[in-house]
């Protein structure tokens, strides 16, 4: 089980510190340092790699990849193996209030015009599993007349313009060159401003480590050529992952062959999790 992300993102900060040191007593150089940072910010806003040094991962060059995720909601059966795999793989707190990925159930009953939505934090579902460490959808609609029902897996959208990265006061959360939003747990101060800024509810506070936590698309796995744990265990291939730089990758084909959409386009975050088969009610 891998606990820490294998990325060393602080070289950008070190260079900043170097500039800062050189700038002592020299306003001119201080201005230059600011200019560099502004360029980095502009690059980041444009979705380009920031001035962060490449991670030291054997056989992995992050400039060669552009990861993305796909969800085919029509295939999801709500078995929640993905949720349990994620919790185990990433050592996420075993309770019903902290998730790197979760699954929502949308059920419209006959005669109703709005979907009933529930997920793993729902007390009825917690009772159904008998434990906050295991996850089940309670069979609560067995006697009802269901008109329409579907499941929607959720996770961090690893946005191109992530609001969480924008607000982080220290730069502890950052966007990698290969399109993943990560958190440096050794640098995060635990202010939770990013938790507030994420419109998707994808972030949470890791009470044990006292830092913010979220999905990394299993960065420790994908940089070794493996799939994220949730994709690996999905029995119906509802979850798709791959490299958009590879035109034949599962995600490239998923985006090419389907009419995909993203969640909350209006935020301007430009998510990189692409959905097929979701309804207007999906939040």
């Amino acid at each position, binding site marked *: 089980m891998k606990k820490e992300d294998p990325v060393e993102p602080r070289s950008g900060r070190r260079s900043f510190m170097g500039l800062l040191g050189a700038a002592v007593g020299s306003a001119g150089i201080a201005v230059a340092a600011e200019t560099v940072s502004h360029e980095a910010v502009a690059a980041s806003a444009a979705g380009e790699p920031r001035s962060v040094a490449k991670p030291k991962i054997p056989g992995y060059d992050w400039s060669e990849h552009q990861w993305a995720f796909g969800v085919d909601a029509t295939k999801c059966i709500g078995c929640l193996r993905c949720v349990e795999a994620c919790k185990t793989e990433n050592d996420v707190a075993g309770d*019903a209030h902290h998730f790197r990925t979760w699954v929502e159930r949308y059920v419209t009953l006959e005669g109703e015009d709005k979907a009933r939505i529930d997920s793993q934090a729902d007390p009825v579902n917690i009772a159904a599993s008998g434990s906050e460490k295991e996850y089940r959808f309670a069979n609560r609609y067995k006697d009802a007349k269901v008109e329409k029902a579907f499941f929607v897996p959720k996770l961090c959208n690893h946005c191109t313009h992530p609001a969480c990265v924008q*607000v982080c*006061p220290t730069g502890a959360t950052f966007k990698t060159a290969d399109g993943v939003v990560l958190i440096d747990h050794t640098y995060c101060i635990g*202010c939770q401003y990013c938790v507030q800024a994420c419109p998707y*509810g994808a972030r949470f506070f890791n009470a044990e480590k006292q830092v913010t936590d979220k999905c990394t698309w299993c960065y420790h796995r994908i940089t070794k050529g493996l799939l994220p744990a949730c994709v690996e265990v999905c029995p119906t291939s509802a979850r798709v992952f791959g490299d958009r730089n590879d035109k034949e990758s599962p995600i490239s084909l998923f985006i090419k062959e389907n009419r995909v959409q993203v969640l909350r386009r209006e935020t301007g975050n430009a998510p990189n999790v692409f959905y097929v088969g979701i309804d207007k009610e999906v939040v």
Partner: protein
Amino acid sequence: MESLFIAAPYTGYVYPNETVFPWSVLIVVYPYLTGLVAGAFTVSSLYQVFGFERLRPVAHFALLSSLCLMIFVPTPLLLHLGHAERAFNALLTPHLTSAMAMFGYISAFYVLLLMLENWFVFRPYIVEQAQKRRGLPGLVYRVASLGSNDVSEKAMRYDRKWIFALAVIGIPAAHGLHGYVGFVFGSLKSREWWSSDLMPVIFLFSAIISGTALLIVLYVVSCWLRKVRIDLACLKGMGYAMWGFMMFALVLEGVEFGALVYRGREGIDVIMEFVAGPLIVPFFILQFAVGAVTPILMLSYLFWRGTGGTPLAVGIVVSAVLVMFSVLMMRYNVVIGGQEIAKTGKGLLTFQFEFFGRDGILAAASVLVAPLILLSVVVRFLPPWHDPVAP
């Protein structure tokens, strides 16, 4: 083992991670404290810069209060942080797109400005004491004088120029500091309750009224403790300022809420459910009726009738206490209220109070009381009083 988090009950649908509130009552206290700083500084500036002579009895006291409050402004944030020992990361390697990263710089600048202005204001007294006193107190005053013992008329003229300049710079600094706090909330697009361009302005006006109200209360209490006569003209002046700025604050809040409802974007149904339910007591009754309408009516009556003497003083002080409570409730309704409306736009959460613990009411109350204790000590070393001569 004690649970590491408190899960909030909810109705409708909320994201599972939302059931743990990120920000607690400490983050309610934080904008409240910065608001008091800005408000107290405003009162001081009304005298130092704009020449409101009737505020002279509280001008220096306001400045000293502002400094004592400002020293404690970072404490709620530090208490709240998961890793307070890393707090300086935000200063050493600031992330320039983050509103929060700029806080360290703005507040550090403002603390320096306040210390400098206070030093100039109290310099004649410090020099006098440094020359008069012996032993440890004398040493403290001699160190505080920074070796600058010239109190000639020429030096005083020079000091007054500095005080004026610092007070002028302090106006945008103090209000920028608090406007920025409003921006921290208003700039987030994830929460409809916060996401408003008016948020910084609303925070500013409520800051001014809360700081003025605090000074009214502190001034009257100090007169009572020192057994000196209250300068009614000064008290009434502060009452007028509070009354006037309250009108602006109320109109702005009304406009913001009206716009939110009128725009009626996605999620407005849940917001209206929130307004018509959980918000009735904390907002409509406590913040609006008790904390805002009552003092406005009371002050209007006192000013209209030309009431004087003790009834005026009592009326203004009661109004000020209500206003301070109203602004505290406003902070609560913004910070906690905003988190009670789920990001899904389809559910409402109920905040769970914690009394003990790092994020609890006791910690928040301590942070609020601490500046007042500091102030009560500091006024003994630097008396800021300008009492009218007894008849």
